């Protein structure tokens, strides 16, 4: 038999549970609403300027002739270089930290530092890239320097998300492999890494999406505001979509604000494509296993 007091208490708990659910729901709705407003504003303002000609033209002092070709190509180049440099290094570092590193003060120091690096403001990476790649390495104000700088920026994120993915692989898998006589290397590369790969890919592509939205560090390593050609090699000058948007917003002619919105739309589409690729790859990989 349940007493009246107990029933009251349960009702009270249920009410507070419902209240918390409502607060959490409102918080979610607030985030979604902000996103919807943002996308809606960009689409409404930018849709009129968004067409094939906009994608194929370079910037111009006549707004009706201007387009994002240089920015789009630059973003693709920089993202590719970022991926090619940060992915192998980041994943290798994560594998070492998770599967090989002994638990010493040294490896703990490395781990703490990587966590901290993920929180360093992006402009600091710009300064580092300027000193390291543009000046010391002699890459100049090139698409290579830009891509490597963003590679440094996303490296800690890739390491952390890859470690999470490796850690999520159940130990039973490792033990079963050892029991069958596999060496450490076989366990890692035939069992653990393939099992963790969907998570690693997702983390990497989300990190790349962040890099694609960066402008500040690229200004420091010499991405230019006005450019009417696309890179044909690693040493070429470049611009990226966020910088093109920044440059247009600063233009006194109001028509350029519409172009900036349309360029934001292009950037959003690039980011959606990257995220969709992450999801597709993950699903494909999970199906195959």
């Amino acid at each position, binding site marked *: 038999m349940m007493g009246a007091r107990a029933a009251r208490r349960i009702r009270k708990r249920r009410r507070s549970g419902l209240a918390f659910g409502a607060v959490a729901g409102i918080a979610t709705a607030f985030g979604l609403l902000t996103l919807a407003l943002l996308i809606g504003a960009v689409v409404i303002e930018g849709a009129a300027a968004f067409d094939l000609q906009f994608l194929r033209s370079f*910037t*111009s*002092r006549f707004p009706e002739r201007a387009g994002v070709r240089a920015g789009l*190509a630059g973003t*693709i*180049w920089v*993202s*590719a270089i970022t*991926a*090619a440099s940060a992915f192998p290094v980041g994943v290798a570092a994560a594998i070492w930290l998770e599967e090989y590193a002994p638990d010493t003060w040294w490896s703990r120091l490395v781990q703490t530092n990587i966590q901290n690096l993920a929180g360093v403001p992006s402009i600091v990476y710009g300064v580092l890239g300027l000193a390291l790649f543009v000046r010391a390495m002699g890459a100049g*104000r090139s698409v290579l320097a830009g891509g490597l700088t963003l590679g440094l920026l996303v490296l800690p994120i890739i390491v952390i998300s890859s470690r999470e993915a490796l850690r999520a692989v159940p130990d039973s898998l490792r033990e079963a492999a050892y029991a069958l006589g596999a060496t450490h290397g076989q366990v890692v*590369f*035939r069992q653990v*890494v*393939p099992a963790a*790969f969907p998570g690693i890919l997702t983390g990497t592509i989300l990190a790349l999406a962040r890099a694609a939205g960066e402008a500040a560090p690229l200004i420091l390593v*010499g991405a*230019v*505001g*006005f*450019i*009417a*050609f*696309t*890179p*044909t090699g690693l040493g070429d*000058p470049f611009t990226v979509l966020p910088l093109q948007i920044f440059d247009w*917003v*600063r*233009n*006194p*002619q109001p028509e350029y604000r519409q172009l900036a919105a349309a360029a934001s739309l292009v950037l959003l589409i690039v980011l959606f494509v990257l995220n969709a*690729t992450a999801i597709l*790859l993950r699903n*494909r*990989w999970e199906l*195959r296993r």
Partner: protein
Amino acid sequence: MRDLLRSLRATPLIALIFGACAGGEAGPPGGLTGTVTIDGSSTVQIIAEAFAEEFQIANPRSRVTVSATGTGGGFEQFCAGDTDISDASRRITAEEARQCATNGVEYLEFEIAWDGITVASHRDTDWVECLTLSQLRRIWAAQSTITRWNQVDPSFPDEPLRLYGAGTDSGTFDYFTEVVNGVRRAARTDVQRSESDNELVGGVAGDPGSLGYFGYAYYLRNQDRLTVIAVDAEDGAGCIEPNRRTIRERVYRPLTRPLYVYANRASLDEPAVRGYVEFMLANAAALLPGTGYHALDAEQYQSSLDRLVRETGD
């Protein structure tokens, strides 16, 4: 591992990314080839981009880039030998020239256009049409305590006066402080500053009772949001508003100023850089009216062209 490799090979992302940008069209053969790197004043940026665009239409295989880190930032790179051409809204300073000399960078200086720094307020400001130079000096001086309009002139209303001015890395800041305050770079600190003229226009246009200054081109494109304020230089000419005629004839004083282009002398041996400078001087009169700035007299461009030939040979 084999699974891993296979999936990587099946991943078309990288190939797709690199493939997508391989198709830069070469353009018809002919014209100049080579790269021209330009940086400097954001005021001159509008002009430089117009020249760069037209130059590349005439020479499809040339490659011109224009950045705008400010006059000071531009000279820093120019004197390190990083850029071919530096845009400036004031002359090179003695210290910057020394820097160039230390690094062995020789240069040629060209005046390219006239600009009138325009003083403006919010659209609804109707009590002031003209300020004298000494009133401007009292407002903008480093030790100024003026925060209300009636402190400038008792006939003005008791309204707050908020200031918007060029950022300290811009040549406009150097020029304005020199001619208005009398001392280069002396300025009060309670001023909203920006290197971007466009942000200043936005600040002034959105703040009733505001007072700001920026390049004439920016006023021209936002006339309906601003009230222009004439300037009385106290030389007997009375109040003069900036416009096409007063700037071209330099009667809008003292805020009419020349804009400059500096070319690295060693870079002028490259056909593209030399061609760009020639193109600029030959087409300035035709292209400048569309930018909101004012062309110099034709003879000045011609004498610059002559100087270019004299200094660097044919």
